[in-house]
């Protein structure tokens, strides 16, 4: 077999069904073989779209997403997408072409040292120097990407390696002596945690994306119910616990609910699972959860006591540890008065907005939630649209909220929606976008229309780069430096791509437009003209304690 055939055969053995990519000079042999292969290959319109689509596919399905690009500019165009996946621990394999091994380092045409460039933003990467290593490298890449703390892996395949011939030998198992993720928690630590939980009076569960990647949502729910602890979550943890559950507190942190932020400040025990005490969650560290003991469950030892103190660290897979912990908790604490306290906080500081004549973005999202009965997959761009989507849609299932949490990549949501829809074609997929973000990867409308990937896009169009404008309003004396952004006529734009565009300027038309978009068997873009200077509240100013929030409604 040629290297290109070995690569394709290896992808098949890994169960790859969908590939997002873009051809080019240094992947010609590979693409020649792809011509006959049975993958569902989606030709994107920009390599960044391929990376985000592979990422969205992975987030929606839990499988490893795959993208392919050529060397040089093709590879560098993947970089933002790879970094996005890395920050959010998303399993992905990116395959890039490279110039011939004899030309590497010679500044050859379309040459870039992509393994060098992606070293700090991949879990691991490979440059294939010998065709005999190729099958093993693919096997290892998928294994590394999907085990332990997941993440993106890049394989750089020089042109001559794709062309050379070798026997195909598929390694059935992987043995990497230096890579052995800890999957099971230390029994002693789990016992200690169980004891702390039994003694707690005001426990709170702080759930992160690790719950979702480990598939631990049912155990989490069981734990919360067993010990009667309220549950708050991070942006990445949305969907880890049902939003409509009575123990749910919603998201915490900078734009979290006020009651979640107050509750964690008052708690005497934090059970952190698959979360990393990110600065957007903790606010000012010395004021974060001052009265609380901390149990921190995480698969990545480097997440433990990186940002915040810990009393009982437990390294391992969340699902295994929660299962074990549930067995070890012999006596559930009595939290009835704590639950009452939390209920009072919920009543005192509800999540709210001031409705008005103009279309409010929160209203749009509530309507999408109602029309889709909370069962759609929501992707977001980054900024206000992302925060409103996180606050106002009620997510009851894992893998239904897909958003760039760590890196905060504008332009992520639309290609990610495309990827999610390819993974789960029977599901309704909505990208909640801003008018700024959507313009960053708008070219993928062509991909969607051409491949009949019928996602729906809801643009919350305020004519601003809204989140930056909000900060300028609050902290830079309303000096709106370069945040007023004009866009195209989105309806005509959608039509020019062969999609359907709907413009909504009146509040009473919001729901009809959503229903219409769902009923149309095509990619539909709805351009909601919203209140231009609406802000996301509550808000913790950067560097403040998280219980010190601006509500904006006073």
């Amino acid at each position, binding site marked *: 077999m040629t290297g290109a055939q070995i690569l394709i055969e290896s992808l098949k053995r890994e169960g790859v069904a969908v590939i997002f990519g873009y051809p080019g000079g240094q992947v010609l042999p590979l693409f020649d073989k792809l011509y006959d292969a049975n993958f569902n290959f989606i030709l994107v319109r920009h390599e960044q779209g391929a990376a985000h689509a592979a990422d969205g596919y992975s987030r929606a399905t839990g499988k490893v997403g795959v993208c392919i690009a050529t060397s040089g500019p093709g590879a560098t165009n993947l970089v933002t997408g790879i970094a996005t996946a890395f920050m959010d621990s998303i399993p992905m394999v990116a395959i890039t072409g490279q110039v011939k091994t004899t030309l590497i380092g010679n500044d050859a045409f379309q040459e870039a040292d992509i*393994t*060098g460039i992606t*070293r*700090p933003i991949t*879990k*691991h990467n490979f*440059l294939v*120097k010998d065709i005999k290593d190729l099958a093993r490298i693919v096997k290892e890449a998928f294994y*590394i990407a999907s085990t332990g703390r997941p993440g993106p892996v890049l394989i750089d395949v020089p042109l001559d390696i794709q062309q050379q011939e070798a026997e195909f030998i598929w390694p059935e198992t992987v043995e*990497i*002596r*230096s*890579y052995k993720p800890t999957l099971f928690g230390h029994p002693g630590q789990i016992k200690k945690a169980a004891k702390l939980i039994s003694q707690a009076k005001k426990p709170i569960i702080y759930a992160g994306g690790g719950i979702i990647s480990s598939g631990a949502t049912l155990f989490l729910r069981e734990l919360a119910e067993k010990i009667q602890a309220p549950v708050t979550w991070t942006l990445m943890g949305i969907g880890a616990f049902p939003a409509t559950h009575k123990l749910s507190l919603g998201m915490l942190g900078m734009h979290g609910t006020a009651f979640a932020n107050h509750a964690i400040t008052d708690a005497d025990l934090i059970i952190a699972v698959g979360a990393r005490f990110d600065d957007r969650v903790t606010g000012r560290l010395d004021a974060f959860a001052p009265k609380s003991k901390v149990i921190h469950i995480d698969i*990545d*030892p*480097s997440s433990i*006591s*990186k940002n915040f103190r810990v009393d009982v660290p437990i390294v391992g897979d969340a699902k295994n540890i929660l299962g074990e912990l549930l067995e070890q908790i012999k006596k559930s604490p009595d939290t009835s008065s704590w639950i009452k306290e939390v209920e009072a906080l919920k009543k005192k500081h509800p999540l709210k907005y001031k409705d008005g004549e103009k279309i409010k973005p929160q209203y749009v999202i509530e309507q999408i939630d109602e029309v889709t009965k909370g069962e759609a997959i929501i992707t977001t761009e980054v900024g206000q649209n992302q925060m409103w989507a996180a606050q106002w849609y009620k997510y009851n299932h894992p893998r239904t909220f897909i958003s760039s949490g760590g890196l905060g990549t504008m332009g992520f949501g639309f290609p990610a929606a495309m990827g999610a829809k390819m993974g789960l074609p029977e599901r309704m997929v909505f990208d909640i976008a801003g008018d700024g973000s959507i313009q960053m990867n708008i070219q993928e409308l062509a991909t969607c229309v051409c491949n009949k990937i019928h996602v729906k896009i809801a643009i919350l169009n305020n004519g601003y780069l809204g989140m930056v404008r909000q900060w300028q309003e609050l902290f830079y004396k309303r000096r709106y430096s370069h945040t007023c952004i004009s866009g195209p006529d989105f309806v005509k734009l959608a039509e020019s791509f062969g999609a359907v565009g709907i413009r909504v300027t009146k509040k009473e038309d919001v729901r009809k437009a959503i229903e219409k978009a769902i009923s149309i068997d095509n990619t539909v873009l709805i351009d909601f003209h919203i209140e231009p200077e609406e802000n996301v509240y509550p808000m913790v100013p950067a560097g403040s304690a998280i219980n010190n929030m601006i509500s904006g409604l006073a």
Partner: protein
Amino acid sequence: MRHTISVLVENKFGVLARIAGLFSARGYNIASLAVSETLDPSISYMTIVVEAKDEKILEQIMKQLNKLIDVITVTDFTKKEHVERELVLVKVDYSAKEKAKLEAILQKYVGKIVQHKDDTAVIEAVGKEQQIKQLLESLRQFGVKELIRTGKIAIEY
């Protein structure tokens, strides 16, 4: 505080760059670095000396080192019993009138002359950090023309 860290790694291209990257990304300078193959040629041994401005950051670097796929083990020798040595080569003035004085110093410290020609001698010294430091200070009077150090290597016992 100065830390001596040993890292056992896969003997492959790119591994050193991954390791160096973890230090440089956090603005940490590597004071010395020695790398070589072990008895098993598929494994390399690195001894890294680093000045930790903040112990928490160093702890994070150690954890990140452990996370690298190609890293087998990471050990901080600072709190462990170990032997450490460094080799230096020093080129000094070796004129006739200084000979006796130089040889006396070398007897006292760890160095020896391994090569000399005309007015120049190359001194080799192997020792602990403090011994090397003392030798270099006492050699200064002879006019050190050039100095090369291997960086520290360390072994646990």
